[in-house]
């Protein structure tokens, strides 16, 4: 679809989502809505790295966890506010991403995948074993809900609006980035890196920037999600979250901004609606992942695009 048709559509959808707590009084459904919004932001950040730039990064899980812990620790241990916590989470993640990204992106894409994966595990281990800082497996319970300008986001539906505002702002930022010249350069790097070099563009700063921005956004999303849960412990770094983000990106269509956003909203609500047990849900996720890789490796958006191109070819023949 053209941007002129999709932008009003997206705006309408965003406003419709803002009304959710007015439509239902069930805290459970509003809670699912919060998860859906935040998972969509995290998946859109992964899409920036994997879908647009072509770097399969498992480090998003680590950034998500660091974001959660930094925000929680800023409030509980260091006595700062929730908003400062989010800012620190984003900044720290961007710095960590630069430190890891620089040596790793110099090597090949194989090494990049493995290093980001090991990084995610390292963060889990630190969360579990550095008891003095993170309080280990017990975690930090009873995180206070934030407030701003004298308004307290105490109830689930009030927190929903906070999450909504955060998600809309982040998605708008990512959309602006992805549809800008920078976004097009990232796609070019994914499709043909030697050609990009030949055009006089150095890919490294672009890759690093995409990785760092995605890390910062994921970290802030992790912070918002932690305060929705009200507790953080090493389970916040469960591989389940990474799998969810990945499946959203793959089903939605890596490299398609709106495809991933739509898939994020649908797929995070679906398992809740079907009420599978945790084990069973993971088995289904695994089967979906394997099946999607064989049946439609470029996701729903990619599949639609291929059909449109096929139809164009028919007409031109």
């Amino acid at each position, binding site marked *: 679809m053209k941007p002129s048709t999709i932008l009003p559509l997206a705006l309408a959808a965003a406003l419709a989502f803002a009304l959710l707590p007015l439509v239902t009084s069930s805290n459970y459904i509003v809670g699912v809505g919060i998860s859906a919004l935040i998972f969509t932001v995290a998946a859109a950040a992964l899409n920036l790295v994997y879908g647009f730039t072509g770097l399969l990064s498992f480090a998003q899980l680590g950034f998500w966890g660091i974001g959660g812990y930094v925000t929680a620790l800023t409030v509980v241990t260091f006595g700062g506010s929730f908003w400062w916590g989010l800012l620190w989470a984003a900044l720290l993640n961007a710095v960590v991403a630069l430190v890891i990204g620089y*040596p790793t992106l110099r090597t090949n894409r194989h090494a990049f995948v493995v*290093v980001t994966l*090991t990084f995610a595990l390292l963060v889990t281990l630190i969360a579990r*074993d550095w008891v003095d800082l993170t309080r280990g497996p017990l975690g930090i319970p009873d995180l206070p809900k934030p407030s701003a300008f004298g308004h307290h986001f105490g109830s689930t539906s009030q927190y929903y609006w906070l999450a909504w505002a955060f998600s809309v702002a982040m998605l708008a930022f990512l959309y602006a980035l992805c549809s800008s010249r920078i976004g097009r350069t990232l796609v070019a790097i994914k499709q043909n890196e030697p050609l990009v070099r030949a055009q006089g563009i150095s890919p490294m700063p672009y890759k690093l920037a995409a990785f760092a921005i995605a890390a910062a956004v994921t970290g802030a999303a992790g912070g918002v999600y932690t305060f929705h849960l009200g507790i953080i412990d090493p389970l916040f770094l469960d591989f389940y979250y990474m799998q969810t983000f990945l499946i959203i990106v793959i089903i939605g269509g890596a490299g398609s901004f709106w495809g991933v956003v739509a898939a994020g909203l649908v797929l995070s609500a679906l398992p809740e609606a079907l009420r599978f047990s945790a084990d069973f849900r993971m088995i289904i996720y695994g089967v979906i992942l394997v099946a999607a890789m064989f049946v439609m490796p470029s996701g729903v958006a990619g599949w639609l695009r291929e059909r449109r191109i096929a139809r164009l070819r028919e007409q031109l023949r």
Partner: protein
Amino acid sequence: MTIDAVYLLQLTLNGIALGLLYALVAAGLSLIFGVMEIINFAHGELLMLGAFAMTFALPVLGLLYWPALAASILAIMMVGFAIYELLLSRLKPDEFERSILITLGLSIIIIHVMQYLFTATPRMVDTQYGFEGIEIGNIRLTWTRIIGAGAAIVAFVGLYMVLRYTQFGRAMRAIAQNREAALMVGIRPRVVARNAVVLAAGLCGLAGAAIAPIQLVTPYMGQFLIFKAFALVIIGGLGNIPGAIVAAIGLGLIESWIGGFFEIVWQEAAVFVIMIVVLFVRPDGLFKRGGMRVG
């Protein structure tokens, strides 16, 4: 801090045993990468299945160690064969990201099916050797540990012989070094890739079966190990089997020493710090890479 010589020796022996175990997993990963240029995310789950196979085989075979070990290895090789034929054989060359996502999905399925069937409760298994062992001075080593380490060393020598001197192994090296040239002299990549996956699965099965009497067996045991094995493969140089083995034994020793003197955080963080440093200094891994090397 005074360093007790006996304590240090004990740590060193533990480190070597741990390193050999890492090496079995890392060598298999490296072998698969060398031949197919893919990374098998479900490799740790093969190890876990090997350990489970051992816990089922031992009681059936009257706690006899060797037949149970053989049965477990054989079972995991069959699993490897099935994984190749059902999933990996459909991958085209240069579909690295896709291979990771497919094997990741497989790993999720295996872990959660095992947990669904057998619960997450850790299992222990007894062998004919029980907790008997030998004592050298103040150091005690159980037979299960000694045999595990011995079997790993035998497996490496065997792997070296196979890759170096048999047609079967030469074909694998040929594919790894130059795919087109190997095709031209009549080597079938599909068969070679299948052999490599089955061989790597066998190594993993051996590691899992050897570890079962030493550690608790849970559906998650493979996950933590596999991350380290990935890092080792990077440190040693992707596709470099001796590099991975040397890096693995080195890491086992380092982790064991650190664990003996410092807090556990540092033990777990060691592998990551080493990997980042190696990537800074030598982006292609510690040991030079150039096709799949065996010696």
